[in-house]
């Protein structure tokens, strides 16, 4: 079963609040309440009922939209109280029937997206002083507790009944793979032996023991729960307000609406094209190759950001950087979920390198509160945070990316990141069609990868001199040969070799095992020390995805397969 169900559904990631089926959001000054109230009949795919606030991809797409809009449209919000509208459960986690009926690819994509959403919650807490607090007013199980773990603080109703739990191992034979295990020990720093007991106790832990083990930050009786949470939310809001006022002054932040993306779809039987204003994604199911084209800022775009934060704020969602990266983000998600046959993505960037470098500099200046006191500089910074998240999404996309620096392309500043995020960078060396490359200040930190290091540092982890030299050339426009000498290029090809060598490289790539490539790329893309976020994707997810294909989970007698059915699982006891 399963495989069919996943692929017959075309998933759209663009949402707006009027279309939410599963969430309510209430705004009250500096505090927002995000209330999960999942419509049991509102599943994305037929065949399961979303009982007890369990979720599927559709539920999480709405949550991601809420988190994103909160930052752009409601910048006045300092504390976000996450609670449940269900009278028994806070959240029962991912819907098990949904997981049981889904293909492996669907499960992996679902987990990856939900993981990214949880990281976005944390990103909002750290970077935008929007503090997420989990108000667990009922059973908080599995993915429900993992959602709470992504919040800065967790409070649990103390009614002798409500517990937090990670029942995946004992009940389902899989892992709490949405960050659960990692955040237990790496974020909340729960002692590993207690984490072991907790993660194998299906019914979980409640009350004072949950506090003692640091599974939650506090418990309150039911009658006082709302009032206590409200008070804590107000405290946190006051702290966060003081923090941002110290940086930005106390000018009230005014929200910026995110309108719908402009998308034109076309295609025939085997090719589809998704044309945005700055981005175009073309997929060919025959060759299993996609082309992702991104166009850089225009003179007018540059002029706008040079006017400073007020002008940028006034331009809102039409600002090139926000528009282009929203489009890129949507294209990447489309690629992941709706085009799973595509193995290789050819990335092509068209930009004026000098202009893009200048654009980046103007953008960073406009976001600097010291230079623009009392302005809406937060919005510009928010755009940069968004660019960073989109690029991280690309790092975490399990497709081969080749940056193709053909005639007519240019790779500057933030758009150079697309080449740095790619697995290889082919560059044309042709004096008649010069292709330029150049780094800007934005390449040196603001767009860091999920493990916290920027892509240049990662690229030159073993060549500090090379990195140092490149730092000296920051802001310069480099020719193809210079770029190659600087170590930015995988293969520099002249016009005679270009066509044939790139063709052979592409054909070779698409002939290799997609699984091996996914694993290889995930390993090679992230040199350097890990952090909590990257461990979730690298370690937890990798183990989860292995367990997902093991018979003990998904075989005919596997625990995940049989959950909810009359038969009980039978395990192959061999330790592998």
């Amino acid at each position, binding site marked *: 079963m399963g495989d069919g169900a996943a692929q017959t559904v075309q998933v759209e990631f663009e949402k707006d609040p009027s279309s939410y089926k599963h969430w309510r959001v209430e705004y009250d000054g500096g505090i927002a309440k995000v209330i999960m109230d999942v419509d049991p009949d509102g599943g994305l795919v037929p065949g399961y009922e979303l009982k007890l606030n369990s979720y599927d991809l559709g539920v999480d797409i709405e949550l991601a939209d809420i988190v994103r809009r909160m930052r752009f449209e409601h910048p006045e919000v300092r504390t976000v109280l996450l609670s449940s509208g269900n009278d028994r459960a806070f959240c029962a986690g991912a819907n098990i029937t949904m997981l049981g009926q889904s293909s492996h690819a669907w499960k992996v994509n679902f987990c990856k997206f939900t993981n990214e959403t949880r990281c976005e919650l944390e990103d909002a807490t750290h970077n935008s002083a929007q503090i997420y607090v989990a108000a667990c007013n009922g059973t908080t199980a599995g993915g429900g507790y993992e959602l709470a773990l992504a919040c800065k603080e967790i409070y649990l109703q103390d009614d*002798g009944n409500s517990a937090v739990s990670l029942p995946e191992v004992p009940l389902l034979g899989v892992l709490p793979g949405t960050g659960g295990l990692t955040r237990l020990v790496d974020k909340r720093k729960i002692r590993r032996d207690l984490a072991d007991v907790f993660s194998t106790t299906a019914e979980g832990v409640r009350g004072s023991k949950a506090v003692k083990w640091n599974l939650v930050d506090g418990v309150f009786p039911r*009658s006082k729960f709302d009032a206590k949470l409200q008070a804590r939310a107000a405290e946190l809001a006051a702290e966060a307000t003081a923090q941002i006022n110290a940086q930005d002054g106390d000018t009230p932040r005014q929200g910026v609406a995110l309108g719908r993306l402009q998308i034109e779809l076309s295609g025939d039987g085997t090719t589809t094209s998704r044309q945005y204003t700055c981005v175009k994604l073309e997929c060919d199911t025959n060759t299993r190759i996609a082309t992702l084209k991104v166009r850089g800022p225009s003179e007018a775009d540059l002029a706008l950001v040079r006017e400073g934060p007020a002008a940028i704020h006034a331009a809102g969602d039409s600002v090139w950087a926000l528009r282009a990266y929203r489009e890129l983000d949507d294209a990447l998600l489309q690629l992941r979920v709706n085009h799973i046959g595509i193995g290789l993505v050819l990335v092509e960037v068209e930009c004026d390198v000098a202009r893009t470098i200048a654009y980046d500099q103007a953008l960073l200046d406009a976001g600097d509160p010291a230079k623009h006191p009392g302005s809406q500089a937060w919005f510009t910074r928010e755009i940069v945070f968004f660019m960073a998240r989109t690029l991280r999404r690309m790092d975490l996309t399990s497709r081969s990316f080749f940056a193709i620096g053909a005639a007519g392309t240019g790779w500057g500043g933030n758009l150079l990141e697309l080449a740095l995020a790619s697995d290889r960078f082919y560059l044309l060396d042709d004096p008649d069609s010069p292709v330029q490359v150049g780094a800007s200040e934005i390449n040196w930190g603001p767009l860091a990868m999920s493990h916290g290091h920027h892509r240049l540092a990662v690229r030159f982890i073993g060549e500090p001199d090379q990195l140092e030299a490149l730092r000296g050339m920051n802001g310069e426009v480099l020719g193809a040969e210079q770029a190659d000498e600087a170590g930015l290029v995988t293969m520099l090809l002249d016009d005679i070799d270009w066509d044939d060598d790139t063709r052979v490289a592409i054909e070779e790539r698409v002939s290799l095992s997609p699984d091996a490539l996914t694993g290889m790329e995930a390993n090679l893309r992230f040199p350097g020390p890990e952090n909590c976020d990257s461990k979730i994707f690298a370690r937890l997810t990798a183990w989860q995805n292995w367990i997902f294909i093991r018979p003990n989970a998904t075989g005919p007698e596997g625990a995940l397969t049989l959950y909810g059915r*009359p038969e009980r699982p039978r395990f192959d006891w061999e330790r592998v």
Partner: protein
Amino acid sequence: MTASTSVDLNAKIPNNVGLADDTKLRRALEQWLPNYLEWWNDMGPSDFADKPVYLRTATSVSTDGWAHYDHVRMPDYRWGIFLNPREASTSQIRCGDDAGKPAWTEVPGEFRNSLRRIIVTQADTEPASVEQQRLLGHMAPSLYDMRNLFQVNVEEGRHLWAMVYLLHKHFGRDGRDEADELLNRRSGDVDKPRILGAFNQPCDHWLSFFAFAMFTDRDGKFQLAALAESGFDPLARTTEFMLTEEAHHLFVGQTGMQRIIQRSAQLQKLDPNGDVRAQGGIDFDLIQRTINYWFTYSLDLFGGEVSNNAADFFGSGLKGRYREMKKYDDHKAIGGTYRLPHVEGGVLVDKDIPLRNALNALLRDEYVADCEKALRKWNKALEAEGCSVRLTLPSTRFHRHQGIYAGHLFNPAGELISEQEFEANKHRWLLVPEDNDYLISIMKPVYEPGKFANWIAPPARGIEGQPAEFEYVRL
């Protein structure tokens, strides 16, 4: 109270579980006992602690030991711990994948959490009902009824003991923590409610008490009977013994309701307009609403009609079907389905559920059949009184808060209806606050031996052969 010596404790607690020689168990109970007595004083029957009550005490499991009658003050009641004796050869896993293998005498690690959950959920209902009923002594319709109430209360207390014994004996520190929690939750408390819904409903007067003992305790009977088929031998034997006491509670409920019904029929005849209320009795519409209310809340106690837990518990041999060994040959029940109407697109559609997942519904069916028997008796009593009224059970879909019908609206016949229709009729179908006001207004205590309140008929016979005018409670 000071800590008891082992000798004291063993004498105080009648048991057949070797308490005298079990240091670990004794130590656990020694710590728990003072808290239990404190709970009993706070939450047990109010204001009657010093009154001798004609109570039955189980002092051993032998035929002459399980029903020992005497006047006892309730706090001095000897709450005992008993396992039903059983032939070793019959102690086998009775259901599920391992049916036929020897039963577990110790908790198997893999099922420890499930078993603890089953036991805690069952245990939590025992003190809950005592809490719900604590004020009823003040409006008892007779000393006979008061005695029955207190008998039920002390036995629910003993059932708590029985479950606490299992937690203390077999579940280590967690078990002791859970046993403490059982004394911390309170029926209807907004912060620490009892686990199951029906046990947080108020029980303000004797009609509710009788209905509770009739319908809600009867759920207990079927849960206990299912646990008596457990492969965990101590649980099976404990619950088997509890069933003998539970039978008396059901008797109190069923005959209490029947005596009210009988009396109402008599009052209807007495009144020139056939108006039961004009005669200070309980009219049949109100009785029917009471049945509708308590029956449906009690159905919720069976859990969801389609349940993974039920399948798991059965599959792993922890909880069987009603009379698993007597009624069934195939104890694995791996094939087979159960047909259940589901709401889909605004209509009821039959669906076949794998049998193991439908075991809550199956147990509930046994319960409904048992309730129907009582209804037939009541209707026969009405017939005997020459009354044309007949009482009925509502559909199992009506007024549900658990399972597949929760969130949908049905009339008592089980037909899907609109919210408008439900709202317009619910005062005819379910108890309303005015019902309570009326019932409390007529429930004045009757403390004179042999006398009964006007709204209830005397029982056919007394307790243990005693006459109706016997002083069941010495006030």
